[in-house]
């Protein structure tokens, strides 16, 4: 019999990236948390504590499964061993959502452990579409593709990121994960309008939103250079851009992402309530 989860959807509320150090806080007040997200690669061992914790958590919360290692933007074929590991995880976990990145991280036999950028051309659209189709066929479900944060551009790019994504979703049938912090980081680094990006984004296909913190630096010419670090609170301009986004598309499941310098649980619940306040306000507007 299929191991179906009772949680097939993410609620239109704030969720959090699960970290093992918060397990006791989470289980002490499970009603205060609407959903969790996990990084798929952390649960690809054969057993032991991580798997046992996830089996327990999936009984209590909807889970969004977020891959960081598929290298969908690679110009090489996908790693089929890794794809099978992902399929195995999705098969037993039955997550409410599954997402991956518009980025590459593997070249030949090397996994570089970072989300690397790609030029936006017809050739890379074709590669990404074919990889997404392969993933969706193997895993047997639709995936969401996340917009990246980028620090550089490519001379050979011949279209915008939003045009690129629009063609990818149209041809592959995937949905989108809109990382609002990534929009702010990339727009600042690439010198375009973040609101203009949101305006051009196919928001009707967004199944999940990410919010996170970034670090500020500058390049050798003194231009601002923001670094997507997931190590801090969401900054005010990103909350404003989130507000702008919700006004356009309505409420959507929203993740607070914090992967480095992980804070006390109360810091994360505070970030989640800020997101929930905005989600509630936009739900009321939508109901009017």
């Amino acid at each position, binding site marked *: 019999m299929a191991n179906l989860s009772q949680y097939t959807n993410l609620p239109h509320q704030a969720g959090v990236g699960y970290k093992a150090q918060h397990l006791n806080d989470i289980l002490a007040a499970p009603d205060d948390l609407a959903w969790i997200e996990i990084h798929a*690669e*952390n649960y*690809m*061992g*054969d*057993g*032991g*504590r*991580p*798997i*046992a914790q996830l089996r327990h958590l999936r009984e209590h919360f909807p889970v969004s499964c977020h891959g*960081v*290692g*598929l*290298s969908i933007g*690679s*110009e*090489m074929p996908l*790693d089929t*061993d*890794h794809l099978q*590991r992902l399929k195995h995880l999705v098969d037993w976990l039955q997550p409410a959502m599954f997402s991956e990145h518009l980025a*590459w*991280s*593997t*070249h*030949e*036999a*090397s*996994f*570089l*452990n*970072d989300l*690397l*950028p*790609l*030029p936006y*051309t017809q*050739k890379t659209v074709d590669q990404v579409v074919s990889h997404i189709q392969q993933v969706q066929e193997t895993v047997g479900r639709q995936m969401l593709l996340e917009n990246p944060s980028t*620090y*550089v*551009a*490519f*001379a*050979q790019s011949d279209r915008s990121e939003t045009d690129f994504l629009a063609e990818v979703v149209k041809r592959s049938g995937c949905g989108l994960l809109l990382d609002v912090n990534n929009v702010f980081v990339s727009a600042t*680094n*690439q*010198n*375009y309008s973040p609101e203009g990006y949101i305006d051009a984004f196919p928001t009707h296909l967004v199944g999940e939103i990410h919010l996170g913190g970034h670090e500020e*630096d500058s*390049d*050798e*010419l003194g*231009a601002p*250079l923001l*670094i997507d670090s997931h190590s801090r609170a969401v900054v005010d301009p990103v909350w404003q851009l989130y507000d702008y986004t919700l006004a356009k598309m309505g409420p959507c499941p929203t993740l607070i992402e914090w992967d480095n310098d992980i804070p006390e649980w109360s810091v994360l619940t505070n970030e989640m309530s800020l997101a929930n306040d905005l989600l509630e306000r936009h739900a009321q507007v939508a109901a009017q």
Partner: protein
Amino acid sequence: MSDFQAEFSSALLNPDIPTPEGVVNPDGKPATKRFDVYRNNVVHSLVSAMEEAFPVVKKIVGDGFFQAMATQYVRRNPPHDPMIMFYGDRFPEFITGFKPAESLPYLPDVARLELARRECYHAGDARPLDVSALSEIPEDKFASARFTLAPSLRLLDSLYPVHSIWHFNSVAQIKISNPQEWIMLTRPEFDVVPYLLDHATFTFVQCLARYQPLESAIAQCETITDDFDLSAAFGLLFQAGIVTNIET
């Protein structure tokens, strides 16, 4: 453009290779510092993974030494797949060939032990048999019985007292007196539990883990010692909860 990712990834791992052509800032100008963000992310994230994976090696050599050694390792041996939880499998051999670590000949085995502990931690779960399973083996099948041991079992023999060195640097400052050690790692539930074995018992477990019939395991142990205590060895196996099946 077909090889842009080859060029990009080589430059990420090798600081002597310049920023790839065509990597630009918003005005179409070269973007060296921007590209360096990716260089830093790659090396920093992998060195951090190594620090998490080899805390005792790091403690023995110190933060600065470890960073330098791990950075060289990362640049020469990037992960071969996204399973970062197992990254560093070639680190013991790397340390063996790493000149500045020459004065610490036991260091590669400490790294081997830390790798084995991680494998043990993430290995598949299994339900152990009770010791009563032994009495169910028909007497005439005893010699040919083969044992399946828990997937989390890891065995490590070292010419150095590496478990004691590990313990000294991560749990408590014990007196280290063993000249060499035979180590068995088990994982009864979620935490790794180490055992120090004598040479014969270690060989016994190793033979069973290789699915050799009981009589051949015993014969091997008897080449090591004249007074191999089979019932004590079985007592340990079942107390450690590592026997998951017996084939007769």
